[in-house]
């Protein structure tokens, strides 16, 4: 089934900093696109701040901690700074939120997309070994992803265009979670197609006539 309001608990985990990398990037992207989500995360982060104020102010720290910090500052000791963003074209800039862009080597058009057949293309995103599979999915206008269920969950953030699934339309900026009981077959908007950021916690399992061909390709 499709979960109602899947985002609220995940936004809490995002604010608290407890999500695995793939989903953390997804929530950060969602927050960048959605004003309500941003307001929630700001409120939740303020709760974190209030809790921090109530932390134990007598916790023992190294007696030379301040001097160490000052000398590390003066030495220019920089713990793991982010790499600069790759330059991208205007379209990529418009549809890919900043947290997700950090995972792209270049513009959308320049990525090494893999054809999944039937007008569907996939680009695998490297989010490290967190046990989840993160990718960009492009469904051409009017085409569909073959009907499939999930052994685990599928998290989807629509970046551009829209898709219709079981009569419900999911549009750019929407965030949806499908679970293992949900056999679905999203059809992309007939004019715009659909670009999604998708995270799965188990390989998709395809049904229908082409399922047996597609299944081996969806392993990771």
């Amino acid at each position, binding site marked *: 089934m499709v979960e109602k309001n899947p985002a609220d608990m995940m936004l809490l985990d995002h604010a608290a900093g407890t999500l695995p*990398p793939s989903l*953390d990037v997804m929530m950060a992207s969602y927050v*960048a696109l959605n004003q309500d989500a941003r307001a929630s995360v700001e409120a939740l982060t*303020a709760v*974190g701040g209030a809790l921090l104020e109530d932390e134990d*102010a007598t*916790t023992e720290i190294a007696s030379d901690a301040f001097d160490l910090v*000052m000398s590390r500052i003066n030495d220019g000791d920089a713990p793991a700074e982010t790499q600069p963003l790759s330059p991208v074209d205007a379209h990529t800039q418009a549809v890919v939120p900043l947290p997700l862009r950090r995972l792209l080597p270049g513009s959308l058009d320049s990525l090494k997309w893999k054809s999944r057949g039937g007008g569907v293309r996939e680009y695998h995103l490297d989010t490290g070994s967190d046990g989840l599979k993160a990718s960009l999915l492009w469904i051409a206008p009017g085409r569909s992803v073959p009907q499939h269920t999930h052994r685990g969950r599928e998290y989807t953030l629509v970046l551009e265009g829209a898709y219709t699934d079981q009569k419900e339309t999911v549009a750019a900026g929407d965030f949806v979670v499908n679970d293992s009981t949900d056999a679905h077959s999203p059809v992309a908007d007939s004019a715009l197609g659909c670009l999604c950021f998708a995270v799965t916690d188990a390989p998709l399992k395809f049904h229908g006539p082409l399922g047996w061909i597609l299944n081996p390709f969806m392993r990771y």
Partner: protein
Amino acid sequence: MSDHRRQNYTTPRHRFVGARGRDGVNKVMLAADWIERVAAERDKAAFAALFREFAPRLKSFSMRGGLPSEAAEEVMQEAMISVWRKAHQFDRTKASPSTWLFTIVRNKRLDYLRRENRPKLQEDDFAHVERTTSGADQDVFALQQNETLRSRLKKLPAEQLEVIQKAFFEDKSHTEVADDLGVPLGTIKSRIRLALGRLRGMVDPETDGFQGM
């Protein structure tokens, strides 16, 4: 920052810890002043004051998350280095000092835990988001909200405070909190929703009934 605000709220010799009410507002203004002085003047004395107040709390935060003392010390030191470097990004109309510090230590803890395989996310990722309102009224409003939030936090029922604290401090997702407490996931979600509702002033503390949510 405009001068009139600083004159209104700064009390240089004010005691920081344990202050409440009007004093609580002063206290928060003081910490905000320290951060702004670090940003504007690279003021080492202001940084030292900030360090005295917050370094132990930052370390305590990471230790609660299960980090051993040395690791928590490292996370705290990296967080304080970030405070120095990113002080110019602090905006008192946007977040209270403790909220800003929370985001820094939270991210440093994440970096520490996932140094090998986590793609780097920075607070800057949200910097492109424009704020629509600001100014002196907003400023006071944000601080009152901070105080209101703290007083509501103190009034939470024990089992609601417990799930909120676990969610924020123990590096556990809400699913793991449920496992940890041996309570059904649905109950945990309800407690979290109730707690967050109360903290936002949307739940009647007498009845736990939602008001307009």
